[in-house]
């Protein structure tokens, strides 16, 4: 047992998966000697050797594409895309091939691969290093989309993603990489890929979020608690497939819901959650479902970044509107 942060938990899960299954490979730009620009693959080359940890040339499309070929051959490639800003060239392979190989061959070939990528803002990074594109992937049939929000969930969900027989896009909140430490037992226990996590139980309002925004959301819940409001905080964790029931149950209990995410509001995955509530949870709604999200603008460079990221204040503002609603 040791106290580790989220990126160390990713590293631990990778090492564990590689140790227990020789088919698991790690590949990407700077994952070998460098150990990844965030050290997520640190030490794996030394431990598992150059046949298991491969530095690729600088070519995201082919990184995804060769992973499809490896997966079809029975390997379990875990490809790192250095930042989500560079994942777009890989979309063609993910949409047109990885997500379809099983279906188009009626199960003859399949694609057990994971594409990992640091995601989101708040690290004062340069341009194209702070995006949150999860909604683009959550719309693609055949893919799974997973976003951990703590070291423990990063460990358990990444193990599950690597063991999953189908392609998984695993987006790691860069802002949380070194934010908090947690005791983690390296017991190889995976977490379910079809379940939300209730981070905090409550009865007055449901706050639904994922990834880095869990921090501001939990902060808002604390503030509300101090005001005597009991907020339930749900970490969606696996966006696709979505655990609708857990969210509906919570909303049935509270009757009020605010959805929080960092990606731009329009077409963000919060819309899907709100839509499901509007269909299946309408009866229990006591107030409009609000979304607190990134603006529908380009992610600003660091000097204005803090005005873009949803703040605890914005979450509280929305929560109070929803709570005050009669």
């Amino acid at each position, binding site marked *: 047992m040791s106290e580790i942060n989220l990126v160390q938990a990713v590293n631990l899960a990778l090492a564990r998966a590689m140790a227990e299954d020789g088919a698991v490979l790690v590949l990407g730009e700077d994952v070998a000697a460098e150990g990844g620009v965030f050290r997520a693959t640190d030490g794996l080359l030394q431990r598992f050797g150059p046949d298991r940890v491969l530095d690729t*040339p600088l*070519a995201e499309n082919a990184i995804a594409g060769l992973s499809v*070929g*490896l997966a079809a051959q029975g390997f379990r490639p875990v490809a790192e895309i250095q930042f989500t800003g560079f994942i777009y060239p890989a979309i063609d*392979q993910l949409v047109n091939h990885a997500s379809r190989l099983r*279906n*188009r061959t009626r199960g003859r070939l399949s694609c057990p691969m994971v594409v990992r990528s640091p995601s989101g803002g708040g690290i004062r990074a340069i341009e194209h290093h702070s995006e949150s594109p999860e909604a683009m992937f959550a719309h693609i049939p*055949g893919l799974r989309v997973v976003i951990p929000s703590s070291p423990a969930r990063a460990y358990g969900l990444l193990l599950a993603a690597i063991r999953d027989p*189908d392609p998984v896009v695993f987006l790691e909140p860069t802002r949380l990489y070194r934010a908090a430490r947690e005791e983690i037992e390296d017991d190889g226990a995976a977490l379910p890929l079809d379940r939300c996590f209730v981070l905090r139980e409550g009865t007055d309002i449901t706050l639904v979020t994922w990834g880095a925004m869990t921090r501001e959301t939990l902060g808002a819940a604390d503030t509300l608690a101090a005001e005597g409001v009991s907020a339930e905080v749900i970490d969606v964790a696996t966006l696709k497939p979505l655990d609708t029931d857990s969210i509906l149950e919570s909303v049935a209990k509270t009757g009020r819901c605010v959805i929080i995410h960092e990606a731009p509001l329009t077409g963000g995955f919060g819309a899907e959650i709100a839509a499901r509530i509007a269909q299946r949870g309408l009866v229990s709604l006591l107030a409009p479902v609000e979304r607190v999200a990134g603006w529908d603008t380009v992610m600003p460079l660091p000097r204005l970044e803090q005005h873009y990221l949803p703040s605890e204040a914005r979450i509280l503002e929305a929560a109070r509107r929803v709570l005050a609603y009669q």
Partner: protein
Amino acid sequence: MPSAEKIVELPLLAEAVHEPDVVARFEIRYSRFLDPKGNALRPLPDFAAGPAELVALYRGMVLARAFDAKAIALQRTGRLGTFPSALGQEAVAVGIAGAMRKEDVFLPSFREHGAQLWRGVSLVELFLFWGGDERGSDFAGPREDFPICVPVGTHAPHAVGVALAFKLRREARVAVCAFGDGATSKGDVAEALNMAGVWQLPLVFVINNNHWAISVPLAQQTAAATLAQKAVAAGIEGEQVDGNDVIAVREAVGRAVAKARAGGGPTLIEALTYRLSDHTTADDARRYRSDADVSPHWAEDPITRLRNHLVGRGIWAKADEERLLAEVSAAIDKAADTYLATPPQGAETIFDFTYETLPKDLAEQRRAASGAEPE
């Protein structure tokens, strides 16, 4: 036959050199064995010494062309979907397949049914695929071969992964990936060539250069004098063959496959052929090229060429031809009937292969689709 000869290891901390200094030199070679009339231009490779393999190659081309004709007939009568004919290009696909081993993996584009049939994809499967049925890609024969790839060039990176798998497992197997001249303009193909070079993979890329990408002629596709020279950018070997001489294709791919199997790394082979047909049954090539452009290429026909050669060598006679045509068309008619008699899969199969196990919300959709109310 190294096509890339490196002159000097570039010294970073360089001593004075005489200018201008040639640091690398490359050449692209072209090979063929039969002239368009079927006459041998040079000693033939061993596999062409006896009749067996040549007749097999001939049969493969005849089968491919007959399938082609049937597919077009079915499409014209509304019983098959849009279909891309390989008329006149049969030697490329068949030459590739003839050079591969069963345990190798083939990653086709969409104009290589001659190779797919050779490798054991059934006529019924091909009809099913082009008829719009996913079962057409569930090959009973070559289980590891990739399905037809429609998004041009996107299977080139898959071939890198497959070949890398072979290399990592220390298997003496080779991946062969075929694509067209148009595909050579795609970035993913360039990325794949480069990666194959970096890892020296057991991988053979074959460019099925039929000189057209729908309406775009080769000259508008690239300024490169040859497509084989795309290999130079990746630091791998590239060569050009007469793609209408099945012996040349079989020989060049055979050499490349053997080299790859022996750990010698990847090769890019440009097979020069010509698309005699429309791009697909949905295309009307007269909009962008004239009969005058096309007709001279009929004289290059790979099937006539090999037949003339076989007849000239006394290996093939009228009776053999008739027997073959009869056999082939019987097989194709039988397969077409089987295809036409195959009902579509149930609607629920839309859901069943999206993931290995059906997620809850998809299971609800499946129920809804089957008429039942959603939960």
